Every structure is written in C-alpha cells, then in structure tokens.
C-alpha cells in the first residue's frame, strides 16, 4: 500500500500491513482505516513504538454514514507529545452488532469520550469500565446524533410528577 509520503503511515504499514484496510493523507492529515478487530493491537503498537510514541489520545468521535455498510465509522485522533506529530485512525462499525473494543486500558482519556459516543451514537464499547451515558440522562430514548434520529423528536418527560 502507498504511504502517501508519510513516515508514520510507512511505519504502521511495515508492522501491521494486514490490519490496515486503507490509508490516505488528504489535506496533510495522515489517516489509516483499520479492521475493528485489530484496533487495540494497532493502537498499542502506535503508543508503545518508540519511533511513533503516540502518548495522547486527543479525540474520539464517530460518524454515521447512514445507508453504507458498515454504517458507523469510529475516528481517533492521536498526538505525540514527544515527537509532535499527529495521526488519525478510523475503524468501521456495523449496525449490528454495534460494538467495538474499548481503548480505556491504553489511554484513560478514552473513558469519557467513548461514553459520549455511546450516548450520542449508540456504539457499545466492549470492556468499558463505566458504560454510562455522558451528556444525556439515563431515561433518554435513542441516540440523537444518528442520522435517522429526527431533530424535532420530543422525549418523554421524566421526574417525580410524571
């Protein structure tokens, strides 16, 4: 696979070529799409490899590509404080089973961001230590950032008087 001139992608492809589905470096952002079963293995390599040293998991989010299979795409932004470089890792998640392995054992910052993704997109994180909703309340029905969740849907009222 072509590394698009990025030494980060080259190193990833040299060590985990079988885990990588696609790479691109659009607009200067080195990006790799990996198999979701191999995600933790790839992430552990990216964190522990001295040449890459991605010590910070900056951002975790998800995109809903309604109509495509697999439907969801998890997006992870990594940053290396030591080497000052960035990498984006993506993994596709199907609608059923809508789950992917958690990254909490690698970076504790994944904890809250994965809770947010569960809350808003309904992607489950296998092995997550605290799988509660983050922004919304437990009685909320559905996952509002899914593209098939209508913006004007009303939620049942909750509380002692209802």
């Amino acid at each position, binding site marked *: 696979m072509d590394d698009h001139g990025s030494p980060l992608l080259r190193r990833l492809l040299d060590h985990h070529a079988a885990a990588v589905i696609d790479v691109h470096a*659009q607009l200067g952002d080195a990006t790799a799409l990996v198999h979701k079963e191999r995600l933790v293995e790839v992430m552990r390599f990216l964190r522990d490899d001295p040449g890459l040293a991605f010590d910070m998991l900056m951002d975790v*989010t998800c*995109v809903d590509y309604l109509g495509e299979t697999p439907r969801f795409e998890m997006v992870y932004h990594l940053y290396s*404080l030591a080497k000052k470089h*960035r990498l984006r890792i993506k993994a596709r998640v199907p609608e059923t089973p809508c789950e992917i392995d958690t990254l909490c054992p690698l970076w504790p910052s994944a904890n809250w961001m994965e809770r947010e993704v569960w809350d808003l997109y309904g992607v489950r994180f296998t092995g997550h230590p605290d799988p509660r909703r983050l922004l919304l309340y437990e009685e909320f029905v559905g996952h509002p950032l899914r593209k098939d969740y209508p913006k004007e849907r009303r939620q049942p009222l909750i509380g002692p008087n209802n």
Partner: protein
Amino acid sequence: MANEPRSDDELTGDLHAEHQILNMGPSHPATHGTVKFVIELDGETIIDLDVQVGYLHRGFEKECESGSWYQCIPYTDRLNYNSAILANVGFCLAVEKLLQLETPERCQWLRVMASELSRLGDHLTRCGAAALELQAMTPFLYGIEARELCWDLQEALCGARVTSNYVRIGGVKHDMPPSFPRQAREVIKKIRSLLADFDAVVTQNRIFVDRLKGTGVISQQDCIRYAVTGPVLRSTGVPLDLRKDEPYLTYRDVDFDVPVGEVGDNFDRYLVCVEEMHQSLRIVEQCLVKLENLGPGPVNVDDPRVRWPAKGRVFNQMEELIQQFKSVTEGPRVPPGEGYFAIESANGELGFYLVSDGSAVPVKVRCRPPSLINIAPLPLMVRGAMLADVIPTFDFLNMIGGECDR
C-alpha cells in the same frame, strides 16, 4: 462494674461511621458552571467523586449538521462564551482547511489580535471568579473591570460583547475601526494597572495562597494519559502550546513566551494564567503595530465560493445576482473530504473535525472540547483532599458548561 476504666483503644480509635454522599450542584453558588458532583465523604475528606456533566447540552453537533456551513458560526460563539472568538477562529480555520483557502495577511493579524483579546477575557474571568469563590470580592471586581475593558475592544471590533460572531469563512466580518489602535493602547494600559492591583491583593495573600498551594495536584503523566491540555498541562511543566508547536495564522511572527509551572497544583495554574494574560497583552500590542504598518488592505479572501459579490455588481449584472442568490439561500459548498484543525484556546486544544460530502450541509461537525476532557481527571486531583479543595480545583480547571456539554 459501673466505673470500669475504658481501654485506650476505645477512646482514641476510629469511630464506626458511614460515608456520607453529598450532592453538589448542578447549580451551586460556589461553582461557576452547571455541573454536578456526587461526592463520597468521610467527615470532610473526599473518598471519591463522580462528575456528572451534560446539563447544558443543546445539541451543537446536531444543529450544525442540519444547517449550512455559515450557520454553524453563531453556534461556535456559544461553546465557550468567555472566549467566543477563539471558537469562531477554530471553526473557520477548519473549514478553510477543507476549502484549501489562504486568508489575506491583514485578516490573519486581525484574527490573532481578536483571539488574544478573547483569551485575556477568559483568563480574567477564571482568576476573578476563583478569587470570588474563595470569598474575595475585591479582586473579582478588578478582574471583571478589566474584562469589561477587554470586551469594549471586542465590541469595537465586531459590535457584540459576548457572542461575537466575528470571524467568517475566508475572512473576518470587517476591519477594525480607525480609532481602534488608540483605544486599544489606552485599554491595555488600564488592564496592566488592574492586573497589578489584582496581583497585589491576591498573589501574596495568605488565605489565597493557602487555599491554592498544594491543592488539586496532578502529575505530568496523568495529564498526558488523560489528554489534558492548556494551562493545566503547562502547570505541570510541559510547554505544549499549539501557537508555538503548530503555529497557525501569524503566530510564527509574534514574539511571546509560554509560561510553565513546576508541581501542577492550583497555585501554579493561577501563576501560569496570570503570565499568559501579560503575554496576550504583548501579542495584542505587536498586532497593533503590524496592522498599522500593513496599511489598508482586504480582510476577506476574494473567492466566489465563500464571499458574496459586491453590491454594485449584484444590482447590475445577472451572473453576480445569481451568485448572490445562491450564496444567501444555500451557502458555500465545501469539497468532499475530512479534516481536523486544532487551535490553542484558553483551556487547551480546541479541535474541529469536519466531514463534508461536497454539499452545502456538513456531514459531521465535531468539536473537541478542552473543558470536557480537562475535567475528566478531577476525581484524581481531589481524592483524599478536603471538601473545600474542590472549589479552587474546579475554578482553575475552568470548565465552561457551554463548551463542555455542547
């Protein structure tokens, strides 16, 4: 039998007491933010703490994904309402990355200046409100007076004090007024004097120092593991500042220092913030000189994809009329692709991850909120400490509900 002596152990040993659960918030007078802490207490010692956020969730991403790219900008004002311009700048730079636009030099200097004014206002609120919540009213008034002056400048730039809506895709709303440099220099002088007053009342104050020193300590390793950025990370001695490390706009040509702390406690965070305010004032002064030397010039990129045509042409030429109509009703179309752009906001790395399918409506607008990510390790910072330590620790994490909950 009645007066049997009690054993030492019985007199001095621990009482069998249950831990108490205390709900603090969501609207607590001593926290300036809508957040709830469920605190498990043993006497006044914190055994554990659960942070519950989300009370200010307005569906920022959902709203952005149902309007045009331009309609997102007012929503970004309402993320961190202490430093709205920083969020404006971050979002517009991310869209410009997708559009591969380069803004004119004058626009970049204006953005840098507006960003620093915004950062200054944010830090003034943080330090002032922290003093207030530690029962010191006077320094709070100094801080708020300085913030008012700072907001006067923002008002002169964009007509609004809080929800600025100043930055546009490919430019800014308009150039600074001719009287701005003079007004700004007067205001900077006044803010410096207010900061000196603030410093005199607070920095050596026994009560203030005792409440801050050694409380809310977080180690460098924990900051990195939790992806904490901004003044909190810098207070542990890591000089990560995206203005230096990944310079955007014209930060490469600006002379400023990145202050760092040593031990990562609340006092270090306070000192880092105070020094950052002085550095922001330095940057604003350099921007004023630069803008005066540059002389008049365009503040918007001349690109028909994002800019409306001049009114004179709209009224007289068919093509321009059509373009104006399309721009107003539909908004700009952004080429398909994805991009992440991060700026150094007052709280840390404020990133926007955007996905476009080539239409006029974004597929995904993700805001990486530093407030949310910085407050996640709060339990680590206060476990084993006293209940009262929650207040200064929360203040100097500076969680802004609008940005945290979106």
